[in-house]
Each structure stands twice: as structure tokens, then as C-alpha cells.
């Protein structure tokens, strides 16, 4: 009674918190790496000419780059806190047992700090968009 064959791609592995936090760690790590790359370049401009440096940095002062900055802060914070969790998993004897609770602690801390950061970081954008 064989019927309806559909595309032959395999299913996505249904891993749990551990797998997805690893994916997030790698994605945020790569993001941070590219930011660092760009950051070294734009900072190096100051050696070329302080004026060009000011011009380039000036172009960052708009809501789109502001959102990217918020994303960057979020990425770095997740990466750093989850990095500490991974160190605990490898070096604290009870780390593997509590890895899930550690992840929720990471996510909770991340959410609280992000909420706190949002206002001071986005003041300018909020003002421009909503006139706050």
C-alpha cells in the first residue's frame, strides 16, 4: 500500500534546549566575530584621518543602526552568559545535571538586562519615531 512519496530530505533533528542553545551560541559567536571585524576597520580609520573617522561614525546615528546595536548587545549578552553556562557544564560536577535550569537562568538574566538597556540605548530612536 505504498503511496505518496514526498521530497527525500530528512527531518530536522528534534533536539532540545541543549541543541538549540548550542545553535544560538554559534550564531551569536559568528555575529560578534563579524562585528569585531567591522569595528577594527572603522576604528583603524582614525589613523587614516580623524575627519573620515568622524564622518563614518556619524553615519551610525540613525534608527536602523541603532536597532542593529541593540541586536548586538543582545547577541553578546546571550553569548557571554551562555558561555559561562557551558563552562559550568564542563567544569562543575553538577553542571550537566542542571544544564536546563542554568539555561533558563541565562535567558531570564538576559531578558531583564535587555529590558533595562532598551530605554537608555534607544532614547534617540524613540524620540525620532514616537516623539517620546
Amino acid at each position: 500500500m505504498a503511496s505518496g512519496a514526498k521530497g527525500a530530505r530528512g527531518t530536522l533533528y528534534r533536539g532540545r534546549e541543549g541543541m538549540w542553545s548550542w545553535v544560538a551560541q554559534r550564531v551569536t559567536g559568528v555575529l560578534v566575530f563579524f562585528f569585531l571585524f567591522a569595528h577594527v576597520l572603522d576604528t583603524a580609520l582614525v589613523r587614516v584621518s580623524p575627519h573620515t573617522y568622524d564622518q563614518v561614525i556619524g553615519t551610525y546615528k540613525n534608527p536602523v543602526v541603532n536597532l542593529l546595536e541593540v541586536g548586538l548587545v543582545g547577541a553578546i549578552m546571550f553569548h557571554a552568559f551562555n558561555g559561562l553556562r557551558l563552562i559550568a557544564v564542563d567544569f562543575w560536577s553538577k553542571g550537566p545535571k542542571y544544564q536546563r535550569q542554568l539555561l533558563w537562568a541565562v535567558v531570564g538574566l538576559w531578558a531583564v538586562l535587555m529590558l533595562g538597556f532598551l530605554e537608555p540605548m534607544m532614547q534617540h530612536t524613540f524620540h525620532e519615531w514616537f516623539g517620546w
Partner: protein
Amino acid sequence: MSTATVQDKVATSASGRAGIEMMTITVRVKRFNPELDSAPRWVDYQVEADPTARILDSLHKIKWEQDGSLTFRRSCAHGVCGSDAMRINGKNRLACKALVKDLNPNKPITVEPIQGLPVLKDLVVDMEPFFQAYRDVKPFLIAHGNEPTRERVQSQTDRDRFDDTTKCILCAACTTSCPVFWTDGQYFGPAAIVNAHRFIFDSRDDAADERLEILNDREGVWRCRTTFNCTEACPRGIQITQAIAEVKRALITRRVI
């Protein structure tokens, strides 16, 4: 006796009589016949299934009643031999331990070979690379010095130290659930490390350093990214990520405790 009752129920339900409510499920199998197919394909089968029976029973039904060419491994059918690890509904499990009712049977249940080992036919993969990694960690007692005249005595505490990793049945569910192994087939993989752990932390064994050195390889224990997929997949409930972390720590401190 409760065991007898369960047996009775399965017997009645298989004949479709009395008590148990049978249901029609769709089993979606990823099939590949190297002699006919250029690529794997998904094939759907409708089977009558007892929700409290295992997905292995449904695979049997398909093979025996619908398509004899369906190929898979199984031997004990009771979670002991480690023959029938498969990716069922996206997760590695033993087909003989996965109950239909736990697999959301209202939707098609997907069954595909474990990932990262060459597929030979349908659900059968070439296990040789897996067993090679197992052999490479010398999974046998190595003891120097005089042979004792009676058994090698060990305290209960010393025996408990590695009890968890003695439970492995070499089903490969862990190694083939590991994202690192999928992209790097040279990685020793969780199962080999589990079986090294079993001897590294055995007080009767004298070759801990030798095994640690083997796992210090660039394809050894440092490849582990602690995704916990192995621990979640192990049908014996072995705390694999923890065992791997213990081997990592033993390598750093050069102390086996």
C-alpha cells in the same frame, strides 16, 4: 501477575479482538534501495496499530504484510541488543522501545535511518566506522602486574564510580544524534567516549593514561560541544554529557577520580 496481563493484551490485540482499540496510523519511512534508487525517498504506509504497542511492531506488519523489501535491523525486540536505533519523529530511539501512543499517532510517524553513517539500504546503515571508534578506545580490561589467584576485588564505591557507563548496548543512538558527528565523521563520538569512561574510571584497570591520550586527539573528547543530544537519545538513560565532561576534566587535571 502484571506481566502476564500485558502479554495477554498484546496477544488479543494482535488478532484484532477484545478490549484494545486499534487505530490506523501512517508510517512514513525514508527508503533507499541502492540498486534502484538514485536518492532516498519517503514512502507512506497505512497500518493497523495497537497504540500501546511499539513502532517496531508496525514495521514488522509493513514488512510481513505489505512490502517484504522493507529493510531494517532488529534482534531482541526488547531494548537489549541495540540493533534498531532509528530516527523516529525526528529523534533517535530504539524502534522496540518507542510506543505508538507516545509518537503523536494522529499524524504520520516518520522513520528514517540514523544520521552520519553510510546508508546501505532503507533503515540499515554501515556501523563499521562506529565500531572502529569503539575498538580504538581499547574497550577491555588492561591490568599490569601479577595476576591475582582469585577475582580482582573492588569496593562497592569503586564499582559505583563507573556504573552508569557499563549500561551501554552500542546502539549508536547517541553518536548519530550528535551535530558534531554529522559534519565530522572522524570524531570518536559519544559512544566511544562512554565506553572509554567505563574503563578509565575502573579501579582495576591500569590503562587510563593510554585511553586518555587516545581521547586527547583532535578528533577526541575536545570536539564535544555539549549539545546534550546524546544524553537525550540514550535508551539506557546514561548521563553521556556528564561522562564526557568527566573525561575532559581527567585530561586537564591528569587525575582519575
